[in-house]
Every structure is written in structure tokens, then in C-alpha cells.
């Protein structure tokens, strides 16, 4: 175990896939005096190379999947991806569109899902704070990786994260995918 600095200063980079901007406005609302995420050391830094948490809003389509991948790859480890809003979780009401691939998890691994249309600022903050558990697990895996050969490390890291998530329930999606589907259907009926 190393000192838990990674959980104390999560810097965020925010990318809008193809949302209606509702979730983006809620993400920015987190920075306002009303919610003030800087209390937790969270900064919206706008630079993937400095970021620890990747907030994606909106669904992924053929046009932007490369961009989402590139931003993810530019972020140094340890890193966490949070899908904000129902479009980023599953594609939402755009799921069946010809050009929409679905949620962000079609392109990059997602660690926390925030459903909602638009997602509430409280839920977004909750997801980022829960994502910190994964961040710590990934950091611990990195520390262990220093001595072990590369292939073992990759496997161990993947296992470590998986078991940590199960054991601590570190990042349960705030709702399960089944619940999200039900919620979405309700939303559509309205």
C-alpha cells in the first residue's frame, strides 16, 4: 500500500460524445459554488495528460470513437472512466440509430455508470468519488507490478481490479444495467 494521494486529488477531463448538452451542463454545475467539487480536490483540468478521471457524456458513434479512444490512451495510469448520463451508459434513446454504437463501454472500459437524463450533479459527484476506489486499486496494482514480469502483471492487475470491485463493491453502478433499461423504458413511455 502506498500513501493514498491518488484518491485525494482526482483531476477530471470531460468529453462530450454526442449528447444534447444536458449532461454537460450538469457536469459544469458540479464546479459552481452550489456543489463545489473542488472541496474534494477535484479539478476540471481539460488536459488528458494531467487527468485521472475521464467523464464522458453522450453516446459513442462512428465519428467520435477514435477521439474517445485517443483521449483515454493519452491519460497516464492510474485512470478511471465515468459514463455520465443514460446516453453514455447504453446509448439511451439514440441506441437504435444507424450511426450510434451504444454506450462508452463499447470503445473503452468504463468503471462507473451514472444514469439519468440529465444525470444529476449529486449523482455525478457520487460516481467520481466511488471511482476513487478503483483508482486506488489500480495504483496498488501498479506498485506491485514494479517487480513482476510484464505478462503476469497485466493479468494480476486485471484480476486485482476485478476482485477489488467485487469484494468492496467499490464501484457498483448506482443502478444495475437491468434497472437502467427499465428506467429508460419508463422515460420513453412518458
Amino acid at each position, binding site marked *: 500500500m502506498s500513501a493514498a494521494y491518488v484518491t485525494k486529488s482526482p483531476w477530471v477531463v470531460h468529453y462530450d460524445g454526442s449528447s444534447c448538452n444536458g449532461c454537460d451542463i450538469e457536469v459544469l454545475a458540479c464546479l459552481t459554488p452550489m456543489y463545489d467539487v473542488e472541496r474534494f*480536490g477535484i479539478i476540471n483540468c481539460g488536459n488528458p495528460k494531467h487527468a485521472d478521471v475521464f467523464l464522458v457524456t453522450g453516446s459513442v458513434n462512428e465519428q467520435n470513437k477514435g477521439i474517445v479512444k485517443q483521449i483515454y490512451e493519452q491519460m*497516464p495510469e492510474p485512470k478511471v472512466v465515468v459514463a455520465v448520463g443514460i446516453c453514455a451508459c447504453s446509448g439511451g434513446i439514440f441506441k437504435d440509430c444507424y450511426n450510434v454504437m451504444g454506450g462508452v463501454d463499447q470503445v473503452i472500459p468504463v468503471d462507473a455508470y451514472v444514469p439519468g437524463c440529465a444525470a444529476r450533479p449529486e449523482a455525478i459527484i457520487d460516481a467520481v468519488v466511488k471511482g476513487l476506489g478503483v483508482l486506488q486499486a489500480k495504483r496498488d496494482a501498479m506498485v506491485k507490478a514494479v517487480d513482476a514480469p510484464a505478462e503476469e502483471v497485466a493479468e494480476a492487475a486485471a484480476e486485482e481490479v476485478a476482485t477489488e470491485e467485487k469484494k468492496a463493491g467499490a464501484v457498483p453502478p448506482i443502478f444495475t444495467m437491468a434497472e437502467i433499461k427499465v428506467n429508460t423504458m419508463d422515460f420513453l413511455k412518458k
Partner: protein
Amino acid sequence: MIIKAIISVVAFLVLGPFLGGLLAGLDRKLSAKMQRRVGPPVLQPFYDVGKLFQKEKQTPTRFQDFYVILFVVFIIASGVLFFMGGDLLLVIFTLTIGAAFLIIAAYSSNSPYAELGAERELLAMMAYEPMVLITVIGFYMYGGSFRVSEIMAADNMAFLPLIGIFFGWVFILTLKFRKSPFDLSMSHHAHQELVRGATTEFVGRTMGWIEISHWYENVFLLGFVFLFFANGTAWGWIIGIVVALLTYFFEVFIDNCFARMKWQFAFKSAWVVAVVLGMINLFVLYICF
């Protein structure tokens, strides 16, 4: 004398980053209060740097790290020369070399954002450099010595005879601290058109070292403010430290009151201040002393 110099150098090397980090934390807390937010803990800058040192190593070119190390070394060296009571001219030239290495490091990444940031940093340097030179010349014309130790031991405060130069120095501190309205090359604030300007390509521990050397630099720049009030007595020390802290508070206040200006404004205003406040003050000194 030598023992005193060694003590102050060790104190600067050990306490400098703590003081600088605390000041940075107070800066963020104060800014938050001014915006009616709660703000991060005062120790947040230390958490940030701790985190940066825990991140994966990533560098676009191996030369970048080399230049960043030189930047850190020269910034700390200029502070050390200042606090051991050395020659002010040597201090500012070392500081300038340090700043130049930061610019070269930003250029070496070949990232368009970092390159634009580096160009703006060069313009900022050209803006503040005349005033820095005038400040040092002013100390020499008043006290007859470039050595910090002799200025510190002088009988009279340099503040009143150098009052124009003092305000000129406070003006360029905004450029040196990279506060609004002159945070054109890199900003601590969330969004800007250059992503993060000159620091865009510095990742993990490289960025951590940049932050630490900024802490050293800030403490040493406030040391300059202190120098205007030092006169070898306890009162000189107290007034100097209080005014240095007030100056820092003032810079935070200005930072929160202004949007970023274009580089043309930064350049023109800094040179106008240097000519009006600096040169006139030097002229008065030339006539009176």
C-alpha cells in the same frame, strides 16, 4: 557570516517548498472564498504533487525531462544565491536561465499547445525582464551594493526611496506568478484555449517537479518584496514579512478580479510601468543620492 549564510540556505531548501505549497493552498482557499465556495483543504497542493508522483511516467521526448531538471536546478539555485546573501545580478541571471529552460522544455515536446504556451512565456519574459533589471539597479543606486547581505544590513529601509520600483515589482509579480490578467502562457484555472499552455506535455512526476520549483520560485520572489523593507532590525523583518504576505494576498485578489488579457496588453503595460515607475524612480535616485 558564513554560518548565517549556510543556515539560511538550508532553511530555504527545506522550508521553501513547504512555505510555497502552503501559500499555494491558501491561494486556492482564498480564491474559493472570494467566489463564495468552500474550496479545497489548505494542504491540497501537497496532495496534488503527491498524486503526480504516483502517476505513470510518460514523456514525448527524453530531452524534455533533461530540460525540466535543468529548470528545477536553476530555479532552486537562484533562490539559494539570493538567500545566502549573494549578488543580485547573478540571482536574476540564474532565474532567467531557469525560465529559459522551461521554455525550451515546452518547445521540445513539439505539441502545438505547448509551443504556443512557450511562445507566450517568451513574450511574458520580454515583458517583465526590464523591470527586474531596473529593480536590481535601483537597489545598487540606493545602497551602493548588489549583494543581498549588504542590502539586508543597511541602516535605512529601501522602500521609500524605491517606492516606484516597489510598485513596478509588484506589477510584474503578476506576470511571474502567472496570475490573471497575465496568465497567458499557462494557467491554474480550468479551461483555457491552450489546454494547459506550456505545461500541457508535462505528465506525472515531471509536472510534480514543475509545481515544486514554482513553490521555490514564489518564496524567492516574495523574498524580493521582503528585501525592500529589510534594514537589519526586527521591525524591518516584521514589516517585510507582513508586506510580502499582503502582496501575495493582493495578487490572489487581482487574479480573481480579472479575465486574461492579450499578450499585447501584457507587454505594453509592463513596459509602460517599467518606464514610468522604474525609470523615473531611478532618475530621482540619480539626482538625490
